[in-house]
């Protein structure tokens, strides 16, 4: 079958709502774009463990510590589902990790901000995971089977992350004046980066048409951002936190919030590597990889020994 005919069938399948599976024919641009998106997504899960891991030993109670440990473990799991889903497109995980460690691969801009206080852990769960859920529930309807299935599983798990974060913020916001101030401060610092992490505005987002038609992207960045804001602002108001946007107002006609200008310069600067923690995140990741090498070597040696003993017996 020629490529034109293959492409027609591929697009018809997607239009009919069917999933594309690893061995199915797919255009090279589709495969490439998915590898890029899915590996960036996997990297974000793995790098995302670092800012939160920073607070595991300093969690304010055993309950909070157990929750945070479980959340960070989930992020590792999400990274693994996503790397294995990416491998179905014919790329090796080791190659992807190499791209992350060398600084060639990108990951979500949000993880280049520091976690200065305990309230930041609340803000991350509530806002960062909240924004991620908006994006991921859309991606779960995407056309590539393994990615879509990973998203379904991840979304189920993220819902706990989102709630535990909100609970942290709620407790702080209802606490002493100092605790409330800490919650507001974390909210002030994480609000704009959370809005930005959903990606550049639609007029600056390249080649979206084809990606939408191929159901690689399901919704525009601005549409997802709007939904996130509409849902999150009332949550903030409910616990008495003030959204750090002087221009924010509710439009009675459209039924949506309108926000002030977004500092895209900051966003692109962080993406380029100039955020407060870019260098530290990569350094920590490379170090974790090095420090874990002996575990992998031991596991390999153990497996070889077991296989040998089995052969003798």
């Amino acid at each position, binding site marked *: 079958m020629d490529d034109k005919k293959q492409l027609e069938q591929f697009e018809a399948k997607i239009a009919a709502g069917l999933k594309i599976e690893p061995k199915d024919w797919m255009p090279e641009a589709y495969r490439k774009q998915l590898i890029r998106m899915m590996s960036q997504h996997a990297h974000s899960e793995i790098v995302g463990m670092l800012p939160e891991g920073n607070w595991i030993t300093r969690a304010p109670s055993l309950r909070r510590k157990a929750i945070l440990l479980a959340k960070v473990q989930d992020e590792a*799991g999400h990274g693994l589902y996503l790397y294995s889903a990416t491998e179905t497109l014919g790329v090796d995980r080791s190659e992807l990790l190499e791209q992350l460690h060398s600084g060639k691969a990108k990951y979500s801009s949000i993880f280049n901000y520091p976690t200065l206080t305990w309230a930041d852990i609340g803000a991350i769960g509530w806002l960062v995971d909240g924004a991620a859920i908006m994006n991921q529930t859309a991606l779960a309807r995407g056309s590539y089977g393994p990615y879509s299935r990973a998203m379904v599983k991840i979304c189920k798990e993220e819902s706990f992350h989102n709630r535990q974060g909100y609970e942290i913020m709620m407790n702080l916001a209802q606490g002493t004046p100092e605790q409330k101030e800490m919650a507001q401060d974390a909210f002030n610092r994480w609000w704009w980066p959370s809005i930005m992490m959903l990606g550049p505005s639609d007029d600056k987002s390249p080649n979206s048409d084809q990606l939408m038609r191929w159901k690689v992207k399901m919704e525009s960045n601005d549409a997802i951002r709007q939904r996130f804001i509409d849902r999150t602002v009332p949550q903030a108001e409910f616990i008495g936190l003030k959204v750090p946007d002087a221009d924010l107002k509710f439009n009675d006609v459209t039924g949506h919030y309108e926000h002030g200008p977004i500092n895209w310069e900051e966003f692109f600067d962080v993406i380029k590597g100039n955020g407060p923690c870019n260098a530290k995140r990569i350094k920590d990741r490379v170090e974790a990889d090095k420090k874990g090498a002996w575990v992998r070597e031991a*596991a390999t040696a153990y497996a070889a020994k077991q296989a040998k003993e089995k052969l003798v017996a």
Partner: protein
Amino acid sequence: MSDSQWPLWEVFVQGNPGIPHKHVGSVHAPDAEMAIQNARDVYTRRSEGISIWVVPAVEISASSPEDQGAFFEPSNDKPYRHPTFYKIPEGVKYL
């Protein structure tokens, strides 16, 4: 697959007694035992399973998507394999 990492294992999880194992994803691991342990940590953190199978990914043979039409075609023209093919007079019971 390159030899720069451990072999890939496909993971199948049985959710409850009596139902089939279902494919859930894959893990890298140096041997079957560790593949099962990794699969438990990656795919069943919320009591999603009571049993796990792991199979080396290279050992799985699959039908080819390109041949899907022709390959499964033989069953398409045999409606007489379904009970609804047969007309039974009204009033006849237990058939």
